């Protein structure tokens, strides 16, 4: 470990930026965006500097491993020596022997996450300058955006689970604020609240996991935990419980079944927010957490089975809902849920590096897709319904082109980035039985489902592309190409989506991550023909998508009329929101009202007021003995005295 000053500066810039932006925004609203972008850029630059430091630190060692890898030697994470940069800021709190430091740690995994967060963050800041140009309260927007960056960096830089949790909750807060950014619309604010509350459910489970760790291991530091887990005697039940608690936390943040309902609603926020938070960074925090806690998950094959089950289910369900959505952002939102499912499939199979790989490529193409959709929405005067679009490729070529590239990337077509990561996921799933006996049983079924999900993915993105950019314009606005600040990020992201595949080999991504997480075999590269063959789900999906929404529009209509119940169910998002409303939210609300009106006011206060009433009534009765007549008092007093005397003598 080595201390690093630049590391400490990475999250500092967005924090200062957040405050500064708001201050600057008072005088100049336009300047605010540039200040925020500058802060984000500085953060990116410092991440690069720190990244260089880490590379120097890992240095020679890493080449050794690379050389060994080239020989196809059998090696995994165990051969690697863990190297990281640290920035211990201060001791957060210490009770007895249990202490938590405010500590940043920068290892190879964090480096990847940091680069993605700050890099894409900067691009989206830049994009937002154009996108939000006409909004009155854009200083607030940029301030929140910087605050989000700060929280996200805390999340990935945190050297222990509690600092991670700070970021974890922080991004939840920023997500809340940004979803409800246009707070005049109470539905948008409600969506923000929903996101926060659903996330909180996950966070509660996260907290329970922390309590279990504190109780049984006495530390929350990743390095210490890893060491403790290596030769732990703890029962598998306990480990599974901890792992599942973390996974529930992850389902909240990363929108997996059953806690995915907030993400589609989160599209109420401005589109850059959807791109940054709800596609590229925050929602991947769950995946990051799983990768980070790999030493725990590796010990609990049963928990991993559950992870994969949930992930596969999420992938297919979300993909099927995305098939029929007409709101362009909703399509992308469900797509994100589905893609996060893919990532969790990889993580659940123990191929954490694949999950992170897909996380990175997904960040590229999904951010690009969202920004593209934002560009379209911007052009169509905040129209989000794809039925009111069409033929936009001619008017906005840059947007259309970048959107198209990303479409192919997410479809998983060789040689775009999406192919590599997705292929590895399917690969990892089909080999998962080797390491995890539980998974072995369901391997084939899972692989089939995930392939189906991949086909659907290709289909619905192509559908959105076709409905938006091909054909003829069906809306009433006058669309135009977006300003240059919006186009530049699009182009950069499209290039990244296009060339992200270099991470699979040309840049030793797998080995790099191997310094932190187990990466298994280094796969030998395949021939181009095999690769094209392996991307068949993408081709199938894209082909059908293009066919149905350009040449044969009657086919989907016919399908809709033959299977109306299915369309209704998918349009209605499988009625999961309604189900939660009926099963959880409304009963709880009813219970709250019942507890207040029934228990609090009737039972408890009834007892209190009843006691008071009894006293009151008995006072009313006894009061009648006080006639105000002196003689009556005297009589009573006399009788009492005589009684007492008689009593005395009787004793």
């Amino acid at each position: 470990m080595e201390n690093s000053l630049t590391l400490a500066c990475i999250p500092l810039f967005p924090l200062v930026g957040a405050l500064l932006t708001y201050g600057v925004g008072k005088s100049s609203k336009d300047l605010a965006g540039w200040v925020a972008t500058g802060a984000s850029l500085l953060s990116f630059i410092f991440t690069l500097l720190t990244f260089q430091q880490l590379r120097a630190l890992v240095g020679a060692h890493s080449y050794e491993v690379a050389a060994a890898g080239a020989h196809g030697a059998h090696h995994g994470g165990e051969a690697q020596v863990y190297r990281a940069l640290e920035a211990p800021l201060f001791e957060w709190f210490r009770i007895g022997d249990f202490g938590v430091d405010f500590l940043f740690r920068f290892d190879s995994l964090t480096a990847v996450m940091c680069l993605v967060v700050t890099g894409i963050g900067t691009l989206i800041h830049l994009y937002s300058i154009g996108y939000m140009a006409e909004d009155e309260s854009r200083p607030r927007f940029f301030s929140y955006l910087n605050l989000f960056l700060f929280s996200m960096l805390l999340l990935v830089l945190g050297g222990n689970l509690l600092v991670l949790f700070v970021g974890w909750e922080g991004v939840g807060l920023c997500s809340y604020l940004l979803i409800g950014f246009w707070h005049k619309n109470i539905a948008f604010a409600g969506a923000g609240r929903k996101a926060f509350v659903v996330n909180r459910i996950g966070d509660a489970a996260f907290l329970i996991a922390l309590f279990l760790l504190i109780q049984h291991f006495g530390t929350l530091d990743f390095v210490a935990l890893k060491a403790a887990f290596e030769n732990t005697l703890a029962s598998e039940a306990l480990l599974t419980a901890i792992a599942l608690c973390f996974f529930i936390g992850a389902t909240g943040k990363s929108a997996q079944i059953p806690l995915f309902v907030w993400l589609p609603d989160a599209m109420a926020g401005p589109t850059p927010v959807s791109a940054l938070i709800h596609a590229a960074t925050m929602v991947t925090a769950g995946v990051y957490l799983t990768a980070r806690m790999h030493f725990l998950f590796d010990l609990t094959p049963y928990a991993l089975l559950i992870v994969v089950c949930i992930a596969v289910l999420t992938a297919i369900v979300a993909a099927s809902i995305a098939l029929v959505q007409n709101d362009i952002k909703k399509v992308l939102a469900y797509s994100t849920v589905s893609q996060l499912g893919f990532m969790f499939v990889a993580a659940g199979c123990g191929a954490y590096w694949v999950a992170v790989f897909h996380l990175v490529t997904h960040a590229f193409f999904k951010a690009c897709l969202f920004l593209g959709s934002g560009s379209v929405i911007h052009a169509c005067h905040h129209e989000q319904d794809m039925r009111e679009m069409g033929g936009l490729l001619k008017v906005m070529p840059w947007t259309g082109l970048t959107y198209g590239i990303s479409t192919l990337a997410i479809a998983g077509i060789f040689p775009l980035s999406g192919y590599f990561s997705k292929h590895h996921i399917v690969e990892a799933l089909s080999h998962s039985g080797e390491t995890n006996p539980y998974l072995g049983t369901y391997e084939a079924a899972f692989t089939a489902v995930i392939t189906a999900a991949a086909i659907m993915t290709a289909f619905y993105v192509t559908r959105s592309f076709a409905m938006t950019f091909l054909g003829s314009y069906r809306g009433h606005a006058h669309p135009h190409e977006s300003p240059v600040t919006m186009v530049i990020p699009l182009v950069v992201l499209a290039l990244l989506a296009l060339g992200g595949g270099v991470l699979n080999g040309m840049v030793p991504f797998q080995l790099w991550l191997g310094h932190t997480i187990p990466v298994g075999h280094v796969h030998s590269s395949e021939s181009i023909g095999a690769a094209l063959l392996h991307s068949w789900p993408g081709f199938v999906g894209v082909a059908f998508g293009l066919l149905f929404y350009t040449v044969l529009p009657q086919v989907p209509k016919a399908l809709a009329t033959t299977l109306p119940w299915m369309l209704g169910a998918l349009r209605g998002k499988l009625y999961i929101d309604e189900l939660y409303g009926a099963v959880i939210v409304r009963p709880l609300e009813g219970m709250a009202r019942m507890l207040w009106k029934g228990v609090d006011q009737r039972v408890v206060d009834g007892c209190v007021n009843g006691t008071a009433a009894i006293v009151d009534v008995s006072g009313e009765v006894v009061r009648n003995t006080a006639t105000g007549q002196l003689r009556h008092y005297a009589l009573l007093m006399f009788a009492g005295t005589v009684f007492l005397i008689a009593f005395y003598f009787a004793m």
Partner: protein
Amino acid sequence: MPLVFVILSALLIASAVGVILFRNPIHSALCLVVNLVGVACVFAALEAHFLAVVQVIVYAGAIMVLVVFVLMLLNSKTEERTLSGVIQLVLSGIIGGCLVSVVGPFIIEQWPIVAREEPPISGSVEALGKVLYTDYIFPFETAGFLVMAALVAAAMLAKTKGGDPNHPRISEGKNDGTIQAGGEQ
């Protein structure tokens, strides 16, 4: 049992009953005078001569004059006999009977009639005075204060109306019994 005692107690009880049963307050007062004089006789029979004299002077002389004076002044009317009054009489009579029947035997038992040789103490002026002004000087002075205070109090109470407008008559100072708390919020 000496004859004197029998006669005196008959007189005393009769006059006491008279006090409470006569409906005209004047008659009651006259009975009370008889009773007070009877008590003085009892004192004399118990050889407390000084007290017997004081009794006549203070009670019969001073207090009764005051009472009769007030009776005349206020022109008290004859009480009417009401049912509730009778009930009250019966009730309190029963309770009183209980008291006597409970405590009476105890008294008889407690101080049985005994013969004794030494002469009884003398309640003469000197003896009483000696004790009063030596052992009981402080209580005596306190009693003096008490009487003085009572006089002042009586004077204050009996002061005629129309003096101080800040102290209205009780009946005028109507109060609805609620506490005026704070201002309206």
